[in-house]
């Protein structure tokens, strides 16, 4: 990894519900380098979005207890005051949300909402031309119309492009994209990912891409963290992980993607599967959280959490099963 931009160390998030503390994320550590694209991969309920929200300081202390250190460009985000966080969000670190239909305010035009970003950070509303040019940057041709439109008047693709325009409008150094293409059609998915990559190159920002789709990270990321039930079970460079997945969960993720067999022109009688579901937060066992579903479990896995071990060049996994 090149010079580090974001460092996350021992991040834990516990939601408070009815006097109970429910662990959503436990002891997660990873780092994102300058101009790097880092992929955080996991299924729903694994804690991906909680991590993103915690990084931005968007979880209120009343609902969640967040522990650990988040260092952004030398500043401890977990220790600075709320006003400094507000100054940072949108200008230094911005976020693209999963559902473009839900992320926009329905009673304001796209232009008004993009203007707010400038208003908050620069103290005055930008001229219309500035907003138009932000929209044109994400390859929206009729920027004038889009700027004056309300969210319900636009397609999902245009809304997602506009959200990217808003996220990038102040040239942040880190963009967090939470499942940016999951709600979109397949052909749009490719366009939007291409667009994100082009803009990333032009602006030199770092990108944290949150997704459950191995194909999306294979196409875009340089390093990955694999998240299962609130813990990182494997991290490493993309090729390392996809060529030699170490953790049985990572292997299951890599093996169960239908796109893999499509491009091998293989039709299978049965797709490889891991039985069962991701456990709900609060229903984790004492040991490895993948234990109940793991095809390679040994007794030790039930009672103690496997430590993170180096298994290759910059490649770490947390698993007791020893493989060569």
């Amino acid at each position, binding site marked *: 990894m090149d010079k580090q931009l974001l460092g996350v160390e021992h991040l834990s998030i516990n939601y408070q519900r009815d006097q109970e503390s429910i662990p959503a994320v436990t002891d997660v550590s990873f780092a994102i380098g300058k101009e790097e694209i880092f992929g955080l991969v996991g299924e729903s309920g694994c804690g991906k979005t909680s991590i993103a929200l915690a990084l931005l300081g968007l979880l209120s202390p009343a609902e969640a207890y967040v522990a650990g250190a988040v260092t952004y460009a030398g500043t401890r985000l977990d220790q600075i005051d709320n006003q400094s966080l507000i100054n940072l969000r949108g200008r230094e670190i911005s976020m693209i949300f999963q559902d473009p239909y839900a992320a926009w305010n329905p009673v304001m035009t796209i232009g008004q909402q993009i203007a707010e970003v400038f208003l908050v950070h620069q103290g005055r509303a930008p001229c219309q031309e500035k907003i138009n040019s932000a929209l044109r940057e994400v390859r929206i041709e009729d920027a004038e119309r889009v700027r004056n439109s309300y969210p319900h008047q636009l397609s999902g693709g245009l809304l997602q492009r506009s959200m990217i325009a808003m996220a990038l409008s102040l040239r942040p150094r880190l963009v967090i994209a939470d499942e940016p293409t999951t709600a979109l059609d397949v052909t749009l998915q490719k366009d939007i990912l291409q667009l994100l990559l082009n803009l990333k190159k032009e602006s030199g920002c770092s990108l944290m891409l949150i997704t459950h789709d191995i194909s999306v990270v294979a196409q875009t990321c340089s390093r990955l963290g694999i998240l299962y039930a609130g813990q990182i079970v494997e991290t490493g460079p993309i090729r390392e992980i*996809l060529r030699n997945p170490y953790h049985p969960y990572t292997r299951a993720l890599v093996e169960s993607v239908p796109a893999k067999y499509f491009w091998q022109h293989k039709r299978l009688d049965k797709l490889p599967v891991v039985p069962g579901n991701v456990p709900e937060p609060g229903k984790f066992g004492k040991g490895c959280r993948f234990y109940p579903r793991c095809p390679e479990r040994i007794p030790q896995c039930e009672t103690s959490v496997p430590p993170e071990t180096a298994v290759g060049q910059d490649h770490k996994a947390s698993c007791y099963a020893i493989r060569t």
Partner: protein
Amino acid sequence: MRKATGYVHAVTDVSFMIDKAEAFALAGESGSGKTTTALMISRLITPTEGEIKFSGKPIAKYSRPEYGRCVSMIFQNPYASLDPHLTVGYILEEARWSAGVTQATQGAKLDELLEIVGLPADTRRAYPFQLSGGQRQRVAIARALAVQPMLIIADEPVSSLDVSLQAQIINLLADIRKRLGIAFLFIAHDLSVVYQFADSVAIMHSGRIVERGSVLDVLDNPRDEYTKKLVASILSPDPDKKVIA
């Protein structure tokens, strides 16, 4: 001649035929007319022009319960398709009553239905909110099976599920088809899923079928420009086969 279980003219001059026990896929982007076509076949909407036949008889000539025993549906979102205030057992029973399946004619018992879809027998007492997304979709599949249909219309049955669940549900549907000889109209936008599940495929674009044939013919050697574009949008999970750079 083939023995057809369904024959359709829909949306804009759409025609296709589904054989007995065949897995037929309708693929395309949202807005291409896939779901409209499915709703016409399930008789939830009526075509303006053209005709749909089931086992050689126009579907309009069937009585409601009679047709309900021929064709059933699985929807995309298992969080929306199950009535939240009914137990799983009630949901399955209700599907049968509405199709007029009586005690005498009913085949599989509830426990057997649940077993087929891989759920424990005591799930019948559970409410949907007590189940995970994957379990709910299994209940939706059991409901579709409850009337012992000849054709199941599955509208994007895996697209709202997690990756590790998608493969489980695709395998389950394939297994049901083999074991029970039920035909499937499988609606999907993800061609890599279609490739694994279906025998034949029709690609829809703007309400028309632009290409169709066997899955291997169409998806391994697409001829239509739009099909080519759809195939090219399947992202490879191999970092050395990048289409995005």
